[in-house]
């Protein structure tokens, strides 16, 4: 399970970084409120993962100082697209924890998967990307 938790941690770190940079391209209170709440949620998930991994005595590689974005951020549409990619990626990382974990670990992973999928749907709606839902969040 450590391997999957470490991957989830890397995805959460990347999400925190991405929300930090995409915020400047967002416009409107709806966008900004969503980005702020997402970033806070991802920091919470990151901190919980760090403690869990420490309890499991699994050492995580330090988060890199910077990340390469998948594409250049030039406008709001790009920022929303990145937020969707980030949340879809988180859903995938957390879904991978489900079969590896049991009990509280699986419950945490399930909540994180659901949360990421719902955030991805909210970003799709904010960006008018259709369809706003998918049949298999986390497996795409």
């Amino acid at each position: 399970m450590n391997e999957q938790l470490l991957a989830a941690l890397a995805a959460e770190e990347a999400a925190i970084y991405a929300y930090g940079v995409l915020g400047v391209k967002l416009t409107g209170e709806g966008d900004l409120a969503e980005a702020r709440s997402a970033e806070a949620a991802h920091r919470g998930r990151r901190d919980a993962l760090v403690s869990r991994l420490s309890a499991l005595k699994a050492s995580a590689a330090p988060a890199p100082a910077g990340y390469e974005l998948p594409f250049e951020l030039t406008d709001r549409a790009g920022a929303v697209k990145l937020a969707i990619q980030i949340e879809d990626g988180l859903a995938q990382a957390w879904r991978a924890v489900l079969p590896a974990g049991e009990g509280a670990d699986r419950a945490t992973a399930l909540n994180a998967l659901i949360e990421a999928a719902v955030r991805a749907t909210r970003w799709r709606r904010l960006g008018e990307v259709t369809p706003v839902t998918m049949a298999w969040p986390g497996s795409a």
Partner: protein
Amino acid sequence: MVLTDRVKRRQLIRVAAGATLSATTLAGCGLLDDDPEPVPPPDALQPVLDEALQLAAAYDRAVLAEPGLAKRLQPLAEDHRAHAAELARVIGVTPPSGAPSSSAPAPGGDAADSVATLRKAELAAMKTASAACRTAPAARAGLAGSIAASRATHAEALR
């Protein structure tokens, strides 16, 4: 335990009518002595499959009643049909082609379901899939988890 033929027949009729007598109870009474194959317990994912079919049908009814909702609701119904097909495959049952049986009423009853009712049903169905995910064997945890997440996004899309 001595059973008259009459009691035996009544019991069997109750079983046939879908009464909730467990196979073990019957086996303990010796009723199944001449039928060595006990009825297997329902699959843990069966309630998740039932809800997928009920929700797909509920969306279909809502679109029939209000065609203007089609663009918004049809993709959600398709998600449920995809879930139902995969669940049927994993459980090992034949996926029903039409509407669910009348013994399983859709949320909201016969009348076309409002968006608010559909949203409530999605949230309830998300809880069912979440519970199935938490207790599932590893091989099924991802399937149930993705279905729970998909249902949560449906509820979000209906806000």
